[in-house]
């Protein structure tokens, strides 16, 4: 693809437009923007899910910005941003997270790397504390 002078390069970028449905295993060198529907395995540097976008399956990216819906397994090696219209359900791994008010997050959440001094208690430990409090 030849970009016009002054335009941002779209090399290595995947666009799934609204109304488009794609199933399969995809590896994207740069950004994947999903305004339609994707189902399968996706590896990309950046994932951008538009407000009407729907992504499900095994997703592994460096950064993600979610305005639509993401389901199943989402791994974000760097920064995950969930906007107010966005929804994530399933298993989520991240290094940094930001959730806007109104964003829906449910499922199992884990950090890929912990900040210095952060607690290292496991879920079992938390449940043990819960039982002890009753």
């Amino acid at each position, binding site marked *: 693809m030849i970009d016009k002078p002054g335009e941002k390069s779209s090399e290595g970028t995947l666009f799934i437009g609204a109304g488009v449905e794609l199933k399969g295993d995809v590896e994207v060198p740069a950004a994947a923007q999903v305004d339609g529907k994707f189902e399968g395995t996706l590896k990309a540097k950046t994932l951008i899910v538009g407000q009407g976008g729907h992504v499900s399956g095994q997703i592994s990216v460096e950064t993600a910005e979610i305005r639509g819906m993401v389901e199943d397994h989402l791994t974000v090696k760097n920064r995950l941003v969930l906007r107010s219209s966005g929804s994530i*359900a399933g298993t989520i791994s991240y290094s*940094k*997270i*930001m*959730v*806007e*008010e*109104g*964003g*829906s*997050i*449910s*499922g*199992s*959440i*884990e*950090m890929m790397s*912990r*900040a210095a001094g*952060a*607690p290292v*208690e496991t*879920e079992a*430990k*938390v*449940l043990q*504390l*819960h039982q*002890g*409090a*009753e």
Partner: protein
Amino acid sequence: MKCEFSSLRVPENEEEVDAFDWKSFPPAIANRKSNFFLIVDAASGLSGKLVTWTTFIHGQVEGLIIAEHVTVEESGIVKGVIFCRTLTVLGRVDADVICDTLHVRGQGVLTGVVKHKQVKIEGDGLVTGKFARRGRSPAGRAVLAGR
């Protein structure tokens, strides 16, 4: 004003959570005439069951907290169970949480099983565990049932 706290307990299912009337919550009734709140300062620790209207925790609390508004400040540490309407975390919380609104701010760290209606996590906030949005999916009810 004398409040009856002994009968207060954490709701055990989705219906009980939804039916919980915060307007009839004894500390909220007591608070209508005056603004009562509890501060656990950084040099203090509590263990057991804490019932209050609003609390700001700078120290350590281990056990059960039932309050309408809970703020775990930067130096605060809470372990156990929190049942509240709003939870703001700037410190560390290792707890199972049932709330309406969760707000993780600053360097706040939250680990646990969380049932919420609304969540907001800012820049450096860290969360780990199982999250479920209340009043929505069967998965959410499963998390509550698994507490």
